[in-house]
């Protein structure tokens, strides 16, 4: 059931955006998985699920605006042998329903895929109440949770298909909006838990996740023009983190920069730093992400730029840190 993608499809999905791609992916999955059930907390339309709802009405359950109940109900359904995908906005799953996630998914290890749509700051003018600033941190701190943050729409599709086969509770964090840039122009191997080297390099090691993979690639190109050889590692699975891939970076003994559309507290950067710092003589880990603050409200890209999270600014931050003169 591994999902092959084409560059053309990825471009089309990119236009539709992250949420609509989730809807498309789950629709395709339904053709293959009979015991699939998809839950939403009155955000079916916002999750790109309208087509799924009309095509598979018996596989869709709207719980109304009640996220805690949604996870609890998902647990009951999962326990009785159904494959469950339950979506809502990031803070409502990771915080409103955190305890339900903890007990049902963490402690009882029930096979639920909780999908956080609109994570990071892509909710733009809806503001901090709707942003996923700390969701990866919270979900990752719960034992037995797998946390995945796909880099582009193709990876969202691959994640959904891989998740259906993966018999463990999962938190899938969708960053990016409409026009989510393409990282993968061709089909590629995707495996939960295995980081992917997107770009090779020998002077600087960038480790990125979700929307920041594309921005990191842009940053790497800019730095290359300045004579720096920069590698980019896509850690789509923040937990369990691919320590083998990190070992390779540690051996290079070059500064590591982590980039995430998430607080620098507790997310990818922290996960990488936790591991790397445990290895003697390891390189520095420099965390780039959102600050430990509630952020401004604006258009999506404006917010990213405000906090230095677009390619040019990431390149600049790296230069400054390394004291590279232009």
């Amino acid at each position, binding site marked *: 059931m591994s999902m092959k993608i084409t560059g053309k499809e990825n471009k*089309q999905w990119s*236009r*539709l955006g992250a949420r*609509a791609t989730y*809807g*498309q992916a789950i629709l395709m999955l339904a053709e293959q998985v009979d015991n699939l059930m998809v839950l939403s907390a009155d955000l079916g339309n916002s999750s790109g699920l*309208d*087509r799924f709802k*009309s095509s598979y009405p018996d596989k869709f359950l709207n719980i109304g605006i009640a996220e805690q109940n949604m996870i609890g109900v998902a647990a009951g359904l999962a326990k009785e042998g159904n494959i469950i995908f339950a979506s809502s906005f990031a803070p409502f799953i990771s915080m409103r329903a955190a305890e339900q996630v903890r007990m049902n998914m963490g402690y009882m290890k029930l096979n639920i895929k909780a999908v956080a749509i609109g994570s990071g700051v892509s909710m733009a003018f809806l503001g901090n109440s709707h942003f996923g600033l700390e969701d990866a941190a919270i979900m990752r701190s719960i034992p037995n949770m797998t946390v995945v943050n796909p880099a582009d729409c193709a990876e969202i599709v691959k994640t959904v298909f891989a998740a259906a086969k993966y018999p463990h509770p999962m938190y899938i964090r969708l960053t990016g909006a409409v026009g989510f840039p393409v990282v993968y122009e061709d089909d590629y191997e995707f495996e939960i838990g295995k980081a992917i080297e997107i770009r090779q390099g020998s002077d600087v090691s960038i480790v990125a996740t979700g929307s920041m993979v594309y921005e990191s690639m842009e940053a790497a190109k800019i730095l290359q023009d300045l004579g720096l050889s920069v590698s980019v590692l896509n850690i789509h699975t923040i937990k369990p983190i691919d320590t083998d891939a990190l070992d390779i970076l540690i051996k290079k003994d070059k500064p590591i920069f982590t980039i995430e559309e998430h607080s620098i507290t507790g997310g990818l950067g922290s996960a990488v730093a936790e591991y790397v710092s445990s290895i003697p003589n390891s390189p520095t880990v420099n965390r780039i992400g959102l600050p430990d603050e509630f952020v401004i409200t604006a258009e999506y890209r404006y917010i990213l730029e405000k906090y230095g999270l677009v390619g040019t600014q990431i390149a600049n931050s790296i230069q400054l840190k390394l004291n590279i003169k232009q």
Partner: protein
Amino acid sequence: MTNREKYDQVFIDSFSVTKDQLNEGLVYQSVQQWDSIGHMGMVAALEESFDIMLETDDIIDFGSYTKGIEILSKYEVVI
């Protein structure tokens, strides 16, 4: 291909309709595939076919096969 043929082909491909459905009755949500996702796909296909970029308001106002012809004329595409 004429503009009309290109235009029609986009609708046929996007919404799995037949040629005789291509009239003023073909409106948003009148066929299953013309939902919000189908709409975005159709717009993308038209943009690619005619090498244009539709404005957001036009994408929203594009509610029917016939309305679309009117809208495209703004972009100097005569169907």
